[in-house]
């Protein structure tokens, strides 16, 4: 060891065990992070609250149980498509065809269930399979052939419009009359079922959180204080409980019929939210999605099959588009050449981006799509209540969207200034 580092040999030092956090230190850290600009979902939530306050001030009807229920069914299709898009955006890719892919899948559904008379589950399965196939083809063209996803999905965007037209014979409106399919976006669960599912969900969450806490403590790793975990569980319980309570109130305006309960789409969205979040956060696959999005070359060097990941996200995206298409068809009780068209795609991408997903890949969560989708649904819902000319509505919608997004932007600017990126 002739001329190697001179004289002093320094003993290896342990990574310093961080001090055991307390509730207080936890909150202080959180506040320091927020002040440093690392705000997580906070801006989207604040934007949402601001919007609700404004619309309520302008139209008191905004804050009614009925309108609250409307919000869910109105936003459902966009949120579902946005959830799938998050995967694609996480890789820094784009899927412009997601809107019309949902149209194609809805058209397949309509073909089978209405025109050919198949039972609903065959049609639903066929629609989802269609979505999977679309995703496989797009993914193959992007990952294996190497055409930029913007171009592939622009081509698909055009082609799918044609496919919808061909499937539903040049633009007829095909009605969906199957009771099960119509129920998805138009019926509610009995109140007791809503409560039961809520209870189940909260209990499950509590179990997972507490187990995780125990596990980490047992291994001697740094953990949040138990109190923080409990507070989080409590918050979820209160939030979910309030929502279910409100949705279980009577909202019929007609004394003869009763209208209450949680809309059936809500548990569908919640379940998909949980499942997809699990996939992204707790499985190796999800980890690899983030890795490929963050640094594709590094992921490749780490031995990840990058092509497979890239194909898979398009499959997920198109499958979610299929589900979104089914919900849209259910809500409109019909499929036409516009299903999945017009603003659906831009709203879906917008939802993901407003929620905090980056178009450059590597950053984003499923819940972003839900929060961003909520922002967009609230804007559309509120603007609908104002009832002004289309020109006015367009302008104000644009401005409100901007406003909601600027809350987030200002927080991020702070982060950039202090060097936290």
């Amino acid at each position, binding site marked *: 060891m002739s001329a190697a*580092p001179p004289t002093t040999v*320094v003993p290896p*030092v342990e990574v310093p065990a961080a001090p055991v956090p307390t509730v207080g230190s936890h909150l202080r850290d959180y506040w320091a992070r927020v002040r440093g600009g690392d705000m997580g979902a906070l801006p989207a939530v604040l934007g949402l609250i601001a919007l609700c306050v404004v619309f309520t001030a302008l139209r008191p009807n905004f804050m009614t149980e009925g309108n609250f229920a409307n919000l869910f069914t109105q936003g459902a299709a966009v949120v579902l498509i946005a959830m799938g898009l998050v995967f694609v955006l996480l890789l820094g890719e784009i899927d412009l065809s997601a809107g019309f892919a949902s149209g194609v899948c809805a058209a397949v559904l309509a073909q089978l269930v209405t025109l050919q008379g198949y039972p609903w589950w065959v049609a639903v399965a066929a629609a989802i399979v269609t979505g999977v196939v679309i995703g496989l083809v797009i993914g193959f063209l992007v990952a294996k052939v190497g055409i930029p996803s913007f171009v592939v999905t622009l081509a698909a965007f055009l082609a799918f419009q044609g496919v919808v037209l061909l499937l539903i014979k040049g633009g007829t409106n095909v009605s969906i009359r199957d009771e099960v399919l119509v129920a998805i976006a138009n019926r509610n669960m009995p109140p007791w079922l809503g409560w039961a599912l809520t209870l189940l969900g909260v209990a499950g969450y509590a179990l997972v959180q507490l187990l995780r806490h125990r596990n980490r403590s047992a291994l001697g790793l740094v953990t949040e204080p138990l109190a923080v975990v409990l507070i989080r569980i409590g918050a979820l319980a209160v939030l979910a409980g309030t929502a279910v309570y409100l949705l279980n109130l009577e909202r019929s305006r007609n004394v003869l019929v009763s209208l209450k309960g949680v809309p059936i789409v809500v548990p569908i969205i919640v379940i998909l939210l949980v499942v997809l979040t699990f996939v992204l956060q707790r499985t190796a696959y999800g980890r690899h999605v*983030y890795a490929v999005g963050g640094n594709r070359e590094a*992921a490749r060097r780490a031995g990840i099959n990058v092509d497979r990941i890239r194909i898979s996200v398009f499959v997920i995206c198109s499958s979610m588009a299929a589900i979104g298409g089914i919900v849209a068809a259910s809500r409109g009780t019909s499929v036409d050449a516009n299903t999945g068209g017009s603003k659906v795609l831009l709203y879906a991408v917008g939802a993901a981006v407003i929620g905090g997903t980056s178009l450059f890949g*590597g950053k984003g969560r499923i819940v972003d799509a839900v929060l961003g989708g909520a922002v967009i649904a609230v804007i559309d819902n509120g603007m609908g209540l104002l009832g002004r000319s289309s020109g006015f509505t367009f302008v104000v919608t644009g401005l409100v969207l901007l406003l909601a997004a600027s809350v987030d932007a200002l927080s991020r600017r702070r982060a950039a200034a202090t060097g936290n990126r």
Partner: protein
Amino acid sequence: MSATPLLELRGIDKSFGPVQVLRDVDFSVNPGEVTALVGDNGAGKSTLVKCVSGIYSADGGQVLFEGRPVQIHNPRDAASLGIEVVYQDLALCDNLDIVQNMFLGREKRRGLVLDEPTMEQMAAETLAGLSVRTVKSLRQHVSSLSGGQRQTVAIAKAVLWNSRLVILDEPTAALGVAQTAQVLELVRRLADNGLAVVLISHNMNDVFAVSDQIAMLYLGQMVAQLRTSDVTHAQVVELITAGRSGGLGLAGENGNGKRDTPPTETTSAGADR
């Protein structure tokens, strides 16, 4: 020294468009030894490593692993042969944290679910062995790490696995005094445990301190591969900056000819010096 080298390259060529970067390169690595790969800036060291690890495909030549010819088309192939590489351009995912980066591509799981606690523990242990003291949290994104901390993470990532050949491309470039000592010690320990180690470095002190053999690249050509004990500091520097030193190295000055002593011979014979 074992009979067959673990890794042997024969006549590797590599061009980027009109620019030829590697020219008929031979190179061999024995298990249980540290083979230093040295050369001037732009000599082609990193390119050679990337040809071995499947990042680039070589234009010509043969790669033998344990004497058998192998095809390495991508990093997965390399990993399945037991080749681990620390790249000079570190290739970490900035949007992931330290633990996530260290286990990228080989996550520990319990069933479907990632086993985070185990990974965190293993990462902490490995990092502690590399004298990392200033990392505040293992859950920090690597984008917020200092240059040396990033490098340590990359090194820790490569030595975490049961590999047979570890290639380190300038691993200590950004490291502090204590960390460098740790890494050199680690390199020696790996070789002593029977692994083959390739160390690329510009620091001749480090090279002479830990290596058993030295391979010298000069403008994309392998000028000589010699036992460390058979050369001096000054000779190595001359070989990598001028391509020849005394009877060693390329035949002609700034040579386009073949080297006069084929490396397969020099490795065992040590040639004259």
